[in-house]
Structure formats: structure tokens, C-alpha cells
């Protein structure tokens, strides 16, 4: 197992190099260069200042050297300083926000799993029935509804009309004065809407997948064997079928990482949650290139890690893969 994990991690290295190449290319192939922004906005910046800035950022060097220097800095997590007025290190800006986004996405994944597992299995065991059809339509509607629209409706209903939930931010103003339990409650009240709404869009993929997967398994011989030896149908489905249907879910969860991270841009912007998505959005609006670069690379790396975890998880739970992985 350890050997397999090591091999998978080593295989990530070329992918990481590729990610940095694409990120670099996207930024450098664009017309104009990052110093334009600083100089164009400042009428006092003359040609001299422009040249000096280009030197500072290394833009006067040939492109492969620029890439190499950037890569060397990246390896030390040195992403430079933000262009925004606070001039802070990009590394600090990103890493102080990362835990919030990760926590939100993990919570969304947990909700998606909690809903889709029973839903998909239930629909599959009664394929073609009323429940199957209704649940299919409902998850499709959830998938088709734009998350920012649901967020707006939620803010209007639960925030403006009913006044049950706060509509923005992570904590209330008096957060520091609260006790530990009240702090937790306050956080949950702020995060309930963003987490639930961002998980709605993910229901369709997983529940449909589970349904078709379970349908396939139900037809297999080993389930007939289980029935033939007298197991009640309940056990046949919830034990034998479920276990086999569950395994590929890990892969789907891994694949849903980029969508969730991308979606956090919208959710965090609407609900004013200080996470990675909001930072990225603000960086895009302000053309804060160092932060955009950092966010882009980090987004891809997170996806890569998601895939790695999914692969390792797969190897852990599926004996067929596990055994070949040991070899």
C-alpha cells in the first residue's frame, strides 16, 4: 500500500510541472504585461519607471528564464506580493483563507453524501416507480438552478422576510464576546445557507450515478445467490449491493473537487465569506496578477490532491484494486 501511495505521489510531479506551465502560459500569453496596470493608473510613472518595474518583476528576461525563476520561487511558496494597496505576501493572503474554503467544501460534500446515498439506492430499488421519477426531476431541477439565484432567494426568504438567518459574513459583530457554544451556533447560522445551497447542485451527479450503478449491480449473479440462500431483500440491497455501489462514489467525490472550489467563488462573493473564492474574485476584479496566479495554481493543486485522495481511498476499500496495488 505504501509503495502504491508513493508511486501515485511521484506520478503527481509531471502533472504539477504541467499545471505550472499552463498557468504561466495563460498569464504570459496575454496581451500587455502586469506592470501596465501599475503604471497606467499612475500618471507620474514615466518610461523610466516602467523599465525599472519590468526589471523588478524580471519581465525583461527571456521567457524561459522568467518561467524558471517563477518556478523556483513557487517551490519555496514565494508567490510575490499582492498588487493591492496592502502589498501583503500572496502566500499569507491565500493560506489564511484556505481553511475556510476547505471547511465549507468538506461540509458540502458531507451533505451531498448524506442525501444522495439513500436517494440513489432507494431510486434504484424502485426504478421506474413514482419515487424514482420524482427524485429524478427534483435533482435535475437542483442541478439546473443557478446557485447564485438560489442564494438570492434564500437571502430574501430566510434573511429579509423571515429573519431566521444572517445573510452575509462569517460571524456576528459580537462574536468575540460569545461563549464557545454560542460561537459555534453563530458560525453555523452564518454558514448554513451557503453550505446547503452549494451542495444542492452536486446532488444530481452523484445520485444519478449511484442509481445507475446500483441498477447494474442488482442484475448481477451474486445478488441472486444471496437471495437464493435466503437472505431477506433488505439485507441483499443494503449490504451486498450497497457495498459494491459505494466504491466508485469515491472517484466521483474526487472528481467533484474542481467544481466545488470553482463554485466557492460565487458562494463566497454573495455571502461575503472571507475564503479563497472571494479572494480570487477580488483579485480578478482588481487585476491583482500575483494573487490570481497563486489562486490558479492552488486550485489545480487542490484538484490534484482530491484525485490522489480518491485514488488512495479507492485502493483502500476495494480489495481488487488493493491486491494489485500491493504487488
Amino acid at each position, binding site marked *: 500500500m505504501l509503495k502504491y501511495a508513493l508511486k501515485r505521489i511521484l506520478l503527481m510531479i*509531471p*502533472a504539477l510541472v*504541467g*499545471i505550472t506551465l*499552463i498557468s504561466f502560459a*495563460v*498569464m504570459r500569453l*496575454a*496581451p*500587455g504585461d502586469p506592470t501596465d496596470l501599475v503604471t497606467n493608473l499612475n500618471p507620474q510613472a514615466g518610461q523610466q519607471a516602467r523599465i525599472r518595474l519590468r526589471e523588478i518583476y524580471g519581465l525583461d528576461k527571456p521567457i524561459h528564464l522568467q518561467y524558471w525563476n517563477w518556478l523556483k520561487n513557487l517551490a519555496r511558496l514565494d508567490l510575490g506580493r499582492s498588487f493591492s494597496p496592502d502589498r501583503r505576501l500572496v502566500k499569507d493572503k491565500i493560506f489564511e483563507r484556505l481553511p475556510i474554503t476547505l471547511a465549507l467544501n468538506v461540509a458540502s460534500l458531507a451533505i451531498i453524501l448524506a442525501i444522495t446515498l439513500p436517494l440513489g439506492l432507494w431510486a434504484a430499488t424502485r426504478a421506474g416507480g413514482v419515487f424514482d421519477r420524482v427524485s429524478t*426531476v427534483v435533482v*435535475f*431541477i437542483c*442541478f*439546473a*438552478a*443557478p*446557485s*447564485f*439565484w*438560489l442564494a*438570492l*432567494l434564500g*437571502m*430574501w426568504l430566510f434573511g*429579509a422576510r423571515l429573519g431566521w438567518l444572517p445573510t452575509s459574513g462569517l460571524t456576528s459583530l459580537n462574536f468575540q464576546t460569545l461563549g464557545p457554544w454560542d460561537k459555534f451556533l453563530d458560525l453555523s447560522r452564518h454558514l448554513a445557507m451557503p453550505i446547503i445551497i452549494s451542495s444542492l447542485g452536486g446532488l444530481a451527479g452523484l445520485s444519478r450515478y449511484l442509481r445507475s450503478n446500483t441498477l447494474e449491480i442488482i442484475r448481477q449473479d451474486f445478488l441472486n445467490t444471496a437471495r437464493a440462500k435466503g437472505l431477506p431483500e433488505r439485507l441483499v440491497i443494503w449490504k451486498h449491493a450497497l457495498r459494491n455501489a459505494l466504491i466508485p462514489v469515491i472517484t466521483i467525490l474526487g472528481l467533484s473537487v*474542481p*467544481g466545488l*472550489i*470553482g*463554485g466557492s*467563488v*460565487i458562494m463566497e*462573493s*454573495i455571502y461575503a465569506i472571507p475564503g479563497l473564492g472571494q479572494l*480570487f*474574485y477580488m*483579485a*480578478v*476584479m482588481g*487585476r491583482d*496578477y500575483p494573487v*490570481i496566479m497563486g*489562486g*490558479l495554481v492552488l*486550485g*489545480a493543486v487542490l*484538484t*490534484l490532491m482530491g*484525485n490522489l485522495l480518491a485514488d488512495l481511498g479507492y485502493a483502500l476499500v476495494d480489495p481488487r484494486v488493493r491486491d494489485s496495488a500491493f504487488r
Partner: protein
Amino acid sequence: MRFREGLKKTLANRLALMGGLVVLALFAVSWLAPVISPHDPNQMEIRLRLRPPGTPGHLLGTDSMGRDVLSRLIWGSRISLKVGFVAVGLATLIGLALGAVAGYRGGLIDGLIMRFCDLMLCFPSMFLILTVIAILEPSIWNVMVVIGLTSWMGVARLVRAEFLSLMTRDFVLAARAQGASACRIIWRHLLPNAMGPVLVTATLGVAGAILMESSLSFLGLGAQPPTPTWGAMLTEGKDHLARAWWLSLYPGLAILATVLSYNLLGEGLREAFNPHNAARQG
């Protein structure tokens, strides 16, 4: 003929049929926009600001600048259609080209194309698209092109897989034995047989592209004002959430109906074209 049979099966599926009809209706609405739209979508009437639905002359109310919501919805359908066609058309072309080359040539070229594909899939598309939009100017054309450039991977993988399996079939071997050129084999024998699944992916892709465009327009990075788009209309709705709920309701419903219809149609096509199901039913 597999293709016609597939279409027939799709039409027999009630949900897919419904989706198809709504899509057709949308085509008609956007084509007839100048005729059926009750007002100029950008005509402002300052005296009639934020009127609720049911106001005489303004069936779905007016926005904060006194523009007719229904007219803006109708004209907004044009943008969503355009996005669907341009973005998905571009993505499908790129995917077809790369997938065909990878599947037909195999070897090193195949490996390179597929690794590139894997890498592109690593980037959250929202991040990639936002990055490019930040470098270029936010405009609806940029958005469409960028969505196209970042969503071809599914088609490429699919076409490659179809090609690999088709190339082992007898009719392709026969064509090859007759000395048909690579171009001819690809155009006449491989591509037509791979089009079913590509059509499915493209239909579902339209839904995704419309959602993405509306998100970007909502964030202010898509079509620029005063162009009426559903996403941008929702941005406005956000500013008047407490006073004018209708501004936040209708554009979202329009997006929901459109995306849902394309998805249902796509799923119907998928089920109809899936040889797995055909074997089961037959």
C-alpha cells in the same frame, strides 16, 4: 440507421420531449424577440421604477431604471442561445479535432494530447475562465470563447474512445484494406459513427455553458450593461432584494427552465444512444 432510431427513442421519452419542446420554444422566442417583446429592453421610464408584476403595460414589472422586465427576459434569451452555440460549438470542434487525431494516430501524439487533456481538467474551470477574463476585457464574446476553450476535454476523450473502438470494427478494416486515405476513413467512417455521443455531450454542454455565462454575468464579468442578460438582471435583483423580489425571481426561473430543458433533452439522447440500454430493451 442508428442515428434516426436514437432520435425516435428520444422523442418517445416524455421528459426529453418536454425539454426539446422548451428548447424549440426558446429558439422561437429569441428569433421573434423584436416582434413579441412589448417594449424596447433598454428603454427607461424613470417614473415607472420598480413597479411590481401586473402593472398595466408591464406584465412582469419594471426594474430600478424603469425598464420592462419581460422585454429584457425575452432579449436575454438571445444571449443565452448565442452562448450555447458559440461556446459549445467551439468546444466541440476542438474536442473533435484533438480526439480524432489522438484516437486515429495513437502513440506519442495520443499520449501528449491526453495528458494535456488531464492537465486542463485539473483546473477548476471557474478559476481558469476568471483568470483569462481578468487579462482580457470582460465582454460576452470573450466569455463565450473562453468557455469554449476550457470545456473541450470531455468531447476529446469521448471521440478518442469511440475512435479506438470503431477502428477495430470490420467496416473500418475493409475501408483500410481498399486503400482509403486517413482523411476518408475519419470523415466517412469514423466521425459519422461517433456523432451520437458527441451530440449528447454537446447538448449537456449547452446547459453547462449557459449556467457558466449567467454566473459570470452575475459577477459582472460577462455581458456589459445595458445588454440584457439573465445573469446580469439577477445582479440588479440582488441590490433590490428587499423591495423588489420579482427582479430576483424571473431571470432565475428563465435560466432554470433553459438549463433544465437542455439537460433533460441531453439525458434523453444519452439513454437513447446508449447501446447498453438498446441491448437490454431489445
